[in-house]
């Protein structure tokens, strides 16, 4: 089975997206969500879709550590973010300059990875092939999406081509996840 075969994407409505996108300052913005109510006390009412548990504080700390490591190696980054592959939500990230559109970008990039995994499945390659990373070359920017299978996360890096090269960007992301 593919890496992300158990994904269920919940399309978020516009008001939800607007509520999530916060105006940003320069540096570290970990987009926090209100913690989900404890399962034990939630009243059982009409059937609801299965709630996605909010990431634990430990998970967030790990995500922030990953971001920190990448930022240290590539201080000229445009964006570094850890994204949950299943939900497309940002767990930790830093944006140089404004972070407008960060929420949609994270979700769309998670979708890029998901579609790639579906492709690998459809080509019957899953026995021998695992997705390591996806490198997207734009005219002036480089985007790297590294898959971190142990936590079902993605490490997303956007950087200017004048500031680094693809091999170095990939190497930095590989090293961040030791």
């Amino acid at each position: 089975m593919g890496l992300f075969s158990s994904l269920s994407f919940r399309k978020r409505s516009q008001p939800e997206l607007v509520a999530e996108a916060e105006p940003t300052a320069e540096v570290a913005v970990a987009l926090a969500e209100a913690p989900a109510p404890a399962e034990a006390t939630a009243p059982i009412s009409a059937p609801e879709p299965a709630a996605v548990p909010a990431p634990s504080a430990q998970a967030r700390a790990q995500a922030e550590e990953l971001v920190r490591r990448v930022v240290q190696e590539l201080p000229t980054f445009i964006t570094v973010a850890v994204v949950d592959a299943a939900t497309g939500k940002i767990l930790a990230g830093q944006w140089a300059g404004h972070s407008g559109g960060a929420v949609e970008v994270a979700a769309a990039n998670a979708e890029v990875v998901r579609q790639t995994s579906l492709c690998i499945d459809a080509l019957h390659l899953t026995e021998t092939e695992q997705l390591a990373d996806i490198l997207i070359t734009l005219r002036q920017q480089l985007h790297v999406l590294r898959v971190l299978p142990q936590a079902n996360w993605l490490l997303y890096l956007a950087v200017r081509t004048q500031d680094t090269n693809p091999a170095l960007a990939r190497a930095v992301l590989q090293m961040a996840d030791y």
Partner: protein
Amino acid sequence: MAYSTSTPAGQAVQNILNDLPGLMAIAVVDISSGMSLASHTNSGINPDTAAAYNTEVVKQKQKAMAALKLQGETMDDILITLTNQLHLIKLVGEGKKFIYLVVNSRETNLAIAREVLRAQVDLLK
């Protein structure tokens, strides 16, 4: 999976096969339909199936870029690294088509592969 050298796409596939005879799969894909204009495989990989799924990969990334509102930016290529394989998607024809190439990463020089694809860009305008 087939190609006819009477079309530019087919000619491009033939050129790429000549320069990268060890390739595993190749396709020239029309993004609006997700269908191969020309394709060939030397492995168990069905290039036409791959064409359809990779069209979605490209469209999703285009959506991600739209959300960023980047001025003057276009996507050149997407490199997917797997354990033993490299899947390369090179956008051509002003974002309307792409060349899809699968090679074994141990046997193929990536720089050469990218150069071979780049050489087909004019043909596929």
